[in-house]
């Protein structure tokens, strides 16, 4: 429904057999400090993967490099089979993101914001799509209110609506439930789960919320000081650290306790 005439999917899309995201020896050095240090991973299509790590672990920089907002110092990123950022035009219409580092224009109403992003993504039948999102994400009561006059929870739902406006194949989420009350956060997670199942979409999310990652993710990549500390399913990682929650694993990693010591 959102196929942009300017960015058609190639008929023999080499991306269809490729991972949703393939990162190889990715490194980002700001001045002399490495923010991301030689990481490699591939993310299967239709999966939900969590990037875990403390502050400064490199989660946001990794996601930004995948989106093409930050250029790597070295290494490569492929998204939906296309090299980023060189072939970004081929994939930007098929992906979307939500991040606490960006806002929607505050003076514009929710409807106006969604209409503008819908046009940018060449969404067909935009009015119907906005109505659908308003219904799905419970935005109808404030669709004609300025974005700046919304509560934090409402803003998050609007940002999620913007991220879903083009029905993306790939969704990158940076702290999608940060600053939300438990009820709204749970509601957002349920919506993401439903979306992923219905669309067969791939989600990569960075989060500090271990319950969220346990609940949503098929796979967890733990980053520490820009490097991959561990990479497995939540159950696999917890078993390896002999812990019952990811939060305990996170504390072990953050405090430098290795797997053997944790056991």
């Amino acid at each position, binding site marked *: 429904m959102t196929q942009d005439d300017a960015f058609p999917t190639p008929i023999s899309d080499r991306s269809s057999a490729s991972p949703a995201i393939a990162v190889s020896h990715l490194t980002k050095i700001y001045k002399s400090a490495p923010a991301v240090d030689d990481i490699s991973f591939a993310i299967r299509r239709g999966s939900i993967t969590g990037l875990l790590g403390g502050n400064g672990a490199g989660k946001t920089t990794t996601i930004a490099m995948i989106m093409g907002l930050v250029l790597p110092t070295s290494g490569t990123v492929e998204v939906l089979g296309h090299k980023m950022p060189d072939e970004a035009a081929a994939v*930007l219409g098929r992906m979307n993101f939500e*991040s606490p580092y960006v*806002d929607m224009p505050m*003076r*514009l109403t929710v409807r106006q914001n969604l209409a*503008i992003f819908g046009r940018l993504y060449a969404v067909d039948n935009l009015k119907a799509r906005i109505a659908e999102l308003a219904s799905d994400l419970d935005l109808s009561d404030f669709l004609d209110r300025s974005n700046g006059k919304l509560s934090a929870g409402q803003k998050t739902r609007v940002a999620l609506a913007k991220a879903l406006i083009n029905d993306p194949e790939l969704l990158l989420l940076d702290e999608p439930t940060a600053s939300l009350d438990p009820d709204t956060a749970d509601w957002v997670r349920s919506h993401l789960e439903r979306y992923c199942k219905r669309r067969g979409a791939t989600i990569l999310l960075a989060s500090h919320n271990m319950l969220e990652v346990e609940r949503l993710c098929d796979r967890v990549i733990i980053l520490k000081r820009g490097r991959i500390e561990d990479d497995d399913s939540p159950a696999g990682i917890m078993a390896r650290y002999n812990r019952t929650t990811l939060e305990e694993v996170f504390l072990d990693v953050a405090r430098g306790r290795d797997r053997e010591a944790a056991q």
Partner: protein
Amino acid sequence: MNDMSLRIAPHRIGAMILRYWYLLLSSWPRLLELMYWPTLQIITWGFLQTYIAANAGFFARAGGTLIGAVILWDILFRGQLGFSISFLEEMWARNLGNLMMSPLTPIEFLLALMTMSLIRLAIGVIPMTLLAMWFFDFNFYSLGLPLIAFFCNLVFTSWAVGIFVSGLVLRNGLGAESIVWTLMFALMPLACVYYPVQVLPHWLQLVAWSLPPTYVFEGMRALLIDHVFRFDLMLTALGLNAALLLASFAAFIALLRSARRVGALLSAGE
């Protein structure tokens, strides 16, 4: 967004124009500000022109050169501000990441900003010209067809400067915002807005003639004082503007790439 992409889709440019149009309509201070300074300018300079014309023979003969210069300068200055402020709105709103991650290409973004500069210019300058007509008996539109050449050349220069300073702000954050408001004033003495180029020392004249607006202001004086349209001046200005626009676009792309390298798009604030 691929830095080198030159794809242009009208629906994306239209979406961006709509975004700025909604913003203007939602904020009466923004609309008022567009007309406030041009109105003050024309009133101040209009009275000065009236006073000088009554007391100096040359200016009496060269009626309208001051007011004409004020209006043309405002086209140049407001054209650049109209471009740059629309760009700054994205920085202030922390919306740049959303745009950079969307299929919007740099050229489409710049074309939308150019269109908005024209819209904002119209809102600010048309009332100014009407005031000049009613209060100071100066019909700006009586310049006729040459006015189109003056207008186009000034707007092209304003876009070139707007593109360049937007790139600087993109790369350096809102700490560089003051450049948006001040850079054009650096051109003012060299562009010979209110006096002929011959007033400048010889070496500065060479610098002045490298700036497209100098040709426009000289052309305006030739038209109002000698009643001659200097087509040659307009053609040279057009050539210089083409070079300036290309250079500013290349600079914008280079600054955007540099912003990506240092991670400035993620922290597009101070």
